[in-house]
C-alpha cells in the first residue's frame, strides 16, 4: 500500500539530510590533511591539495596522546565497569529478592533520574575537594586536595546510574522465578544465582548498557574539564584537544585540531559501527540522549 510507487521525494529528503549530517565529518577529515595556510583561506576548497600526514604527527607530538588516551581509557573503563556491576546487582535485588522497603527503594532510584547533572557540578567538586583523609586532607576535610587530584575524580560522579539500575531491573523481572528457585534448591547462594544465571541471561542488556555508558563517558567534557583544570595530569582526550588549539602554529591550528579530533572520535565510532544494534536499542529504551 505505502510502497506502490518509487518514493522519489522520500529519497531526495533522506539523502539530502544524510549528506548534511555526514558532510561536517568529511570536512573534518579533509581539513585534517590540509597543509599550512590551506585551511580557512578564500575561496573555500573541500579537498586538500595533498594528503599531508604531518598534522597527525603534530597532533600526536603536541597532545601527549599516550597520557590523554590512558586517562580517557581508565576513566571510561572504571565508569563502565562500575555502572554494569552496580546496576546489575541493584537491579537483581529490586527485581528478584524480597525485602521490606523494596518499592520505596525502587521509587527512590527512579527519582534520582530526575535531577539534571548541572545541579551537582559545584557541590560534588567541593565534596571531593574536602574528602576527609584523602590527598592530604585532615579528618575534617581541610588542608589538602581531597580526591580531586586523582584519576578517580574523573569517574566518581558517573559510577552509579539510576537509569542503569532501572534498565537491569526491568529485564530481570522477566526471568522466570522457577529457574532461580531451582538453583537455590541446588544449594546456590544468592551471589551464585546472580553470577551464574542472571548475568548470562541479561548479557545483551549488559552490552547495551555498557555501550551507552562507554560512549557517554568517553565523550564527557564538562566535568573532565573541571577536574583537569585542578590537575592537568588527569586530562582526558576531549579536554586535551580543546586546549590544543592554543599551542599550535597559528598557520595550521585548524588542521592539527581536526587531526586530533579524528583520532579521538575514531575508537568510539568503530565501536558504534560494530555494535550499533545494541546501542540503538539502548537509546530507544532510554529515550534519554
Amino acid at each position, binding site marked *: *500500500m505505502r510502497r506502490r510507487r518509487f*518514493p522519489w521525494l522520500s*529519497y531526495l*529528503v*533522506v539523502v539530502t*539530510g*544524510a549528506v548534511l*549530517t555526514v558532510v*561536517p*565529518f568529511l570536512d*573534518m577529515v579533509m*581539513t585534517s590533511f590540509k597543509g599550512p595556510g590551506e*585551511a*580557512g583561506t*578564500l*575561496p*573555500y576548497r573541500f579537498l586538500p591539495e595533498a594528503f599531508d600526514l604531518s598534522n597527525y604527527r603534530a597532533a600526536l607530538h603536541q597532545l601527549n596522546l599516550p597520557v590523554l588516551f590512558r586517562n580517557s581509557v581508565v576513566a571510561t573503563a572504571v565508569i563502565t565497569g562500575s555502572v554494569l*556491576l552496580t*546496576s546489575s*546487582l*541493584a537491579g537483581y*535485588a529490586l527485581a528478584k*529478592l*524480597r525485602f*521490606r522497603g*523494596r518499592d520505596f527503594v525502587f521509587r527512590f*532510584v527512579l527519582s*534520582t533520574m530526575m*535531577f*539534571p547533572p*548541572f*545541579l*551537582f*557540578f*559545584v*557541590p*560534588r567538586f567541593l*565534596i571531593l575537594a574536602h574528602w576527609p583523609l584523602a590527598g592530604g586532607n585532615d579528618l*575534617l576535610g581541610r588542608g589538602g586536595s581531597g580526591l580531586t587530584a586523582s584519576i578517580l575524580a574523573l569517574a*566518581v560522579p558517573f*559510577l*552509579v546510574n*539510576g537509569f542503569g*539500575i532501572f534498565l537491569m531491573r526491568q529485564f530481570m523481572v522477566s526471568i522466570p*522465578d*522457577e529457574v532461580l528457585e531451582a538453583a537455590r534448591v541446588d544449594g546456590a*547462594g*544468592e551471589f551464585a544465582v546472580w553470577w551464574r544465571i542472571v548475568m548470562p541471561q541479561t548479557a545483551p542488556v549488559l552490552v547495551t548498557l555498557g555501550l551507552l555508558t562507554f560512549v557517554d563517558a568517553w565523550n564527557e*567534557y*564538562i566535568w573532565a574539564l573541571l577536574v583537569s583544570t585542578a590537575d592537568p595530569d588527569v586530562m582526558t582526550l*576531549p579536554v586535551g*584537544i580543546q586546549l590544543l588549539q592554543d599551542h599550535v602554529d597559528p598557520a595550521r591550528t585548524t588542521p592539527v585540531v*581536526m587531526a586530533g*579530533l579524528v583520532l*579521538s*572520535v575514531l575508537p*568510539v565510532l568503530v565501536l558504534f559501527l560494530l555494535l550499533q544494534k545494541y*546501542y540503538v536499542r539502548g537509546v*530507544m529504551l532510554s*529515550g534519554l540522549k
Partner: protein
Amino acid sequence: MVNTLAPEAAEGAVRGRPSAGPAVGGRTRARRRQAVVAWLFLAPALLFFAVFLILPLGFALLLSMSRWTGFALGDIQPVGPANYTGLFASGSTFLVPVLTNTLLFALGSVALALAGSVVVATCIDHLHLQGLWRTLYFLPIVTTVVAVGNVWKYMYEPGGLVNGVLNALGAGSVAFLEDPDTALPSLVVVQAWASVGTAILVLTAGLKSIPGSYYEAAALDGAGPVTVFRRITLPLLRPSLMLVCVTQFLTGLQSFGLIIVMTRGGPGGATDVAALEMYRQAFAHGDWGAASAAAFVLFAVVLAVTLAQVWLFGRKGEDA
C-alpha cells in the same frame, strides 16, 4: 511456582505465626537471608546516592542560601534568599538575556530537530536500507561535543564550508558566530543537527507501531498523503513526539558544553545560557552561593517546562 505472594503479604503471614513449625522457620531464615543479600547488593548504589546525590543536593541548597566567596568551609555564612532575589534584582542579567537565551536555545533546537526528524522519519519509513540511513543520522550522537563544536566552528568561519557554499551561490559571507544577531541561531542549528538522530530513531519506532490497517482504510476512503499524515500519523505518533520533545528540551535547557567550545557565551553575552552562567559564577568568580541559586532556578525551569509539556500532550490526547 514457589511464591507468588507480594512480599508484604508473605512477611505478614510469617509474622502472624511466630511459633510455626520448622519448615516455616527455615523459610523465615531464607527470607531474612534474602533481605540481607538484597541490601548488600543495593549497598554500593545506595551508598553512592547518599554521598554523591543527597549530600550534594543538601550542600547546594545550603550554598544557595549562603554567602561564600572563599574556600574555607568555615567562612560559609547563611544569608537567606539573598542569592535568589539577587538573580532577579534590577540590573541583573540573569533573567534577560541569560534565561531568555536558554529558553530560545532549547526551543529553537527542539523545534528544528523535531521538524527535521518528523520529515526524515516519515520518509525513511518508505525506503529500503533503513538501517543504513539511521546509522548515518546517528553519527553526531556518538561524537564528543568537542568534535562537534570545533568542526562547526570552523565551518562557520569566513573561509569555512558554510560561507564557501554561500559564496559559491553568489551570496556574501556571514560572520555567524561573531555577530550577536546570528550567534545564537547558529548554535541552535548545531544543537539540532547533533540531536536529530535520536529523534529519528524514536519516531521511526513510533511509526512502526502504527497498524498498517489504518492506512489501508484511509486509502479506501481516498485520503491524500497530507490528510493521512495529519489525521492518522501525527495523532498516533503523539507518545513518541512527547518523548522526543521532553528529552530534547531537557538536553537543550542544560546544555552548555557546545557553547563553551564554540563561543564561551559571546559575543557580548549573546549566547550566554543559565548553566554556563552558573559554571562561570562558581569557577571563575568564586561566588558559590550565586552559582547554586542559579542552578536551582534553572532546575525549577526544567521541571516547569517538562510538566507543561506532559500536561499539554496529555490534554491534546483527550481532545482527539
